[in-house]
């Protein structure tokens, strides 16, 4: 099994080279003049017009041949820290490390209810094919999937913060921020929920939770549809199997048949999918983070993308590739636990 894990991770360097080439090629779609923009903070720096620009292009070597530039670039990125992000004004690795806990905190907390909800709704819908319950669940989930996330998120923000003033945006209230940033609060993980518990600060824990709920609701609802759909189809498929008939013939109640015999088998495709879904969420809940002023990886990545901060985009893609590989690995390792037929080779 160690062998298996090793082989899966071996894939990573390949992805790195391919990704870096791809992103660098994208970058090269831009003319040197356009690319120089990344290095300019104020238009007034270009008072000298073309001449000044050409000097800058020379300075940053943007007129060199493709491979030379790529080599320069990749060296920069490999020389530690994954390069320098212009948008964050920090090394890319630092940004990723510092924002990672926030995103993970949000994503995990949103993933759990979406997964459990999807399994529950999917089971119910699958077991009641084409009955009102099935229709209701399908409409409910497709509804969540058919609305632009940002509209839904903004409405959540408006209701829960604007009108009710229950769940404010951001990650913490200002008083809590001051507390957290003061010397007598130890940042163990960077995830506020965990840190506040470790520090024994209930108030901060509750405050942090308060800030998380609205984005969690948004994310959960938006992510529900896909997994529910897969769970439902998977249930339908499973309920057609002979062993379900066998289970019924044994005299098991319909509840046990559905919730034990069928669901356990139906979980297989959902697990794969849930792994992907979790990975995608880790890959940036861009819009939700933007709306709820939640400084996480998604918002950062979107900002980097819009500003063509290529080292940041590459760093982010690498991070995402790693998440994908690891989560796929986790799913693969989980699979034999759910399905004894699967053996890792």
């Amino acid at each position, binding site marked *: 099994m160690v062998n298996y894990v090793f082989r899966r991770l071996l894939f990573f360097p390949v992805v790195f080279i391919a990704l870096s080439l791809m992103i660098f090629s994208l970058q090269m779609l831009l003319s040197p003049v356009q690319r120089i923009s990344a290095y300019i903070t104020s238009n007034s720096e270009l008072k000298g017009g073309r001449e000044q620009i050409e000097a800058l292009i020379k300075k940053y070597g943007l007129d060199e041949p493709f491979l030379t530039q790529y080599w320069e670039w990749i060296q920069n990125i490999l020389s530690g820290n994954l390069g320098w992000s212009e948008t964050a004004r920090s090394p890319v690795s630092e940004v990723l490390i510092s924002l990672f806990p926030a995103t993970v905190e949000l994503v995990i907390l949103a993933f759990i209810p979406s997964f459990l909800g999807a399994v529950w709704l999917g089971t119910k819908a699958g077991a009641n094919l084409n009955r009102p319950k099935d229709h209701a669940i399908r409409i409910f989930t497709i509804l969540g999937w*058919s609305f632009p996330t940002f*509209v839904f998120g903004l409405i959540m923000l408006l209701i829960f913060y*604007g009108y009710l003033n229950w769940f404010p945006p951001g990650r913490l209230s200002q008083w809590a921020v001051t507390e957290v940033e003061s010397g007598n609060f130890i940042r163990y993980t960077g995830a506020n929920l965990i840190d506040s518990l470790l520090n024994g600060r209930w108030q901060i824990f509750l405050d942090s939770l308060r800030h998380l709920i609205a984005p969690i609701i948004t994310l959960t609802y938006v992510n529900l549809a896909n997994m529910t759909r897969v769970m439902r189809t998977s249930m339908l498929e499973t309920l057609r199997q002979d062993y379900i008939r066998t289970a019924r013939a044994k005299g098991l109640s319909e509840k046990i048949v559905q919730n034990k015999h069928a669901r356990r088998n139906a979980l297989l495709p959902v697990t794969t*999918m849930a792994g992907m879904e979790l990975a995608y969420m880790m890959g940036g809940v861009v819009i939700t983070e933007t709306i709820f002023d939640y400084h996480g990886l998604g918002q950062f990545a979107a900002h980097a993308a819009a500003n063509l901060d290529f080292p940041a985009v590459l760093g982010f893609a690498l991070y995402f590739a790693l998440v994908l590989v690891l989560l796929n690995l986790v799913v693969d390792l989980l699979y034999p636990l759910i399905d004894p037929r699967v053996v890792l080779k």
Partner: protein
Amino acid sequence: MKVFKYLLKNPLSSFGIVSLLLFVMVAALAPIIAPPQSFQLSPYETPRSSFWATPQAMSKDHFLGTTQGQYDIYYGLVWGTRTAFKVGLGVVLVSSIIGIIVGSIAAFYGGIIDEVLMRVVDVFMAVPFLIAAMVLTTLLGKGLGPMIIALSAFGWMSYARVIRSEILRIKEMEFIQAARTYGVNDFSLIFRFILPNAFFPVLVLATMATGSMVLAASALSFLGVGTEEGYADWGQFISYSRNWIVGQGDDPFKYWYTLFFPGMAIFLFVFSWNLVGDALRDVLDPHTIHK
């Protein structure tokens, strides 16, 4: 045909089909029900009768109201229907063609070609979709074309995977073996025997994707890399409304029309595609859940 009958019989999908037909009609009749004005350079540039910053409620001239900057919502929605079809179908068409080509080659030839192509797919999958699309649209500039290119460039992978697994499944079926035994060549095997049978899973995927691509396009608009300002595009219009969701003082719903109409349009469109796709999936292929 049987499929179509099923779709019409199922209350959810028949709703979807009827509403999609309505959208098609609106798109087709756009020049009649929302005639462009003489000073417009293109019918897709939503005309503005004035330039007030604040949205204006429904009136005789603007019977769904106007957005910020006085873009006529009615006009934008009518012509935006065409844009929605262009984006949805355009992206789906381009990405499914790429996906089908890559997937077919990978599955049919297998071995090292398969391995390489699948790694390419992996690499494309390793860039989060929205971020990748953002980078590409930012690179290519605003507009419908760049958006379709960007969404397709990072949206073809699922088609490739589905096609590949379908082909691998079909390839083992006996009619393929039979065709091989009487000397059908590879090309013909793929196009005459395999792809027509792999069509339905792709169709399901494509149906679902058509809606979600319109959503993705609207997300791009939200993130500021969508179509050009004033372009008749639902995503653009709905992102105009984002700042007006909060009403004014005593009247929290003062600007409801800026969100409601574009929101309904996009929602109905996506919802209909999803309903049809969902039903299609049920009827066509219960075995393609996790491919």
